[in-house]
């Protein structure tokens, strides 16, 4: 005990008035210390009470261990949930591009056409844009739900389609398959195209290490939905993309040109019938031949437009890159690396999101704790003063 000599007299005097604890209190406190300061239990059984006592007095190491374990468990659970949700919805959810609808700019020649119905057709196109914007799929269904028009034979089907939209549809679909399954999947694609009464424009199928397949297809637009569903059922869908393009305006404009051409041919035929001289007839026949040639070209272009509407172009790819299994269906080292990276990526994402949520919360708690500590210290100092 440090006692400087200058305080000796004070120390001696104060030693006489030094408070001494009562014997009862001292023995009671001794018992408490020996028993480890037991607390009345609010829990029924001794096991629960022991757990509660452990929770009440956590050491820093145990607190750190518990917090770390809880955080790891939370990350693991969240990772499993995210991964299972992802696999349930498939890569489509990640890779699928939004359904797009394109509208061709109205042909400038349309508004200058001589056919009275052209103005109405353009108005219909404007209205159709809004309708297609609301529900392009329903617009497409409306367009193709009516029976084929006989005027289509002559390229004049636009007359019977007034008020309807001519929608060109296209789609791309990517499938992921095992290398061993590419041939079987290709056969299923042919079968699905056949069932949809479609046309295989082009196909390539590669076997072996870099097994893959690619198909360019024409599918009747009215059966496009069913065909895409059939393709999607063949194997795991990696990506899927659909687009629509409103080609009503060029179709209408071309139809008007065909009609004008027919009118000119009719006029020339009338002139030919009324021709009196051989030279006159020869000249009219030459004009008639040219006009018929132009009419044929216009009808051909119009037919191609109608084919674009009636048949949808579908590009289908079967790929094995990033496959979930090695050749032969076995799960290998490369797949393990890929899966590990994927899981780690998800876990990192979950951790970042968790930190983003918990960080501010922890900061608020820390500030509150520091504030309370400072306030308590000041309050104690004030109490002493």
């Amino acid at each position, binding site marked *: 005990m440090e006692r400087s000599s200058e305080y000796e007299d004070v120390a001696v005097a104060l030693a*006489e*008035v030094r*408070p001494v604890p009562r014997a009862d209190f001292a023995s009671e406190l001794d018992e408490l210390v020996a028993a*480890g300061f037991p607390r009345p239990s609010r829990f029924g059984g001794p096991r629960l009470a022991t757990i509660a006592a452990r929770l009440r007095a956590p*050491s820093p190491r145990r607190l750190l261990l518990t917090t770390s374990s809880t955080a790891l468990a939370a990350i693991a659970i969240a990772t499993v949930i995210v991964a299972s949700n992802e696999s349930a919805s498939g890569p489509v959810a990640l890779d699928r591009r939004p359904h797009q609808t394109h509208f061709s700019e109205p042909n400038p020649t349309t508004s200058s056409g001589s056919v009275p119905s052209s103005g109405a057709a353009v108005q219909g196109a404007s209205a159709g844009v809004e309708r297609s914007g609301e529900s392009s799929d329903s617009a497409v269904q409306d367009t193709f739900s009516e029976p084929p028009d006989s005027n289509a034979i002559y390229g004049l089907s636009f007359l019977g389609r007034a008020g309807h939209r001519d929608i060109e549809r296209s789609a791309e679909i990517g499938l992921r398959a095992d290398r061993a399954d590419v041939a079987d999947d290709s056969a299923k694609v042919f079968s699905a195209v056949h069932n949809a009464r479609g046309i295989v424009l082009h196909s390539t199928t590669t076997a072996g290490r870099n097994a893959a397949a690619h198909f360019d297809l024409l599918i009747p637009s009215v059966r496009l939905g069913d065909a895409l569903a059939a393709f999607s059922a063949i194997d795991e869908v990696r990506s899927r993309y659909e687009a629509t393009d409103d080609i009503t305006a060029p179709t209408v404009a071309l139809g008007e040109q065909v009609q004008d051409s027919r009118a000119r041919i009719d006029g020339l035929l009338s002139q030919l019938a009324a021709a009196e001289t051989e030279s006159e007839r020869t000249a009219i026949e030459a004009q008639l031949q040219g006009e018929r040639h132009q009419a044929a070209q216009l009808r051909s272009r119009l037919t191609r437009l109608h084919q674009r509407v009636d048949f949808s172009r579908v590009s289908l790819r079967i790929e094995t890159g990033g496959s979930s299994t090695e050749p032969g269906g076995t799960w290998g080292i490369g797949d393990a690396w890929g899966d590990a990276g994927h899981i780690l990526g998800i876990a990192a994402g979950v951790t970042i999101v968790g930190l983003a949520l918990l960080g501010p919360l922890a900061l608020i708690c820390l500030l509150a704790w520091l504030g309370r500590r400072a306030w308590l210290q000041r309050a*104690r100092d004030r*109490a002493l003063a």
Partner: protein
Amino acid sequence: MSETLVAPATTAPRDADTAFDELYRSSRDDVYAYAAGLLRDRAAAEDVTATAFERAYRKRSRFDPSRGNRRAWLFGIARNAALDELRRRSRQAKLVSDPIDATSLDAERSERRLVLVDALGRLDGSERELIALKFFAGLANAEIAAVLKISESNAGTKLHRVVAKLREVCDGAL
């Protein structure tokens, strides 16, 4: 009504238990003397002493030797408990005092003790705390500095002033 008494977790290292036992045996009376000297109330001093040792027992595994010795750490806990008691008293505006008995010795010594007790009562709380820490609890200046979170030289200076004031009050009374 019967109640289950549960011993707390015994996961603290055994050396921490041993060290606590030694600390308790060597400091029980000192802690009580400090609390009683500061609060001037035996019952409150007993409560504070029990509370201080219970808190120290719960935190025994968190003791960090790099931040001071065990006695200073214990008296830091006891000081917080005593100040909390003072705060509670101020909130309740109630002072139940149990003055220190000064009538057990001969008349001259008894008179001198009464004067000293009265002089202690005239000191303010922080001054009385210094006296209690130094002369009742027997802490060294370095330990007092650690408890009060001030420098050792500052603790020595304050102590010198308080002792001078105490002497002055006592001389005036005699």
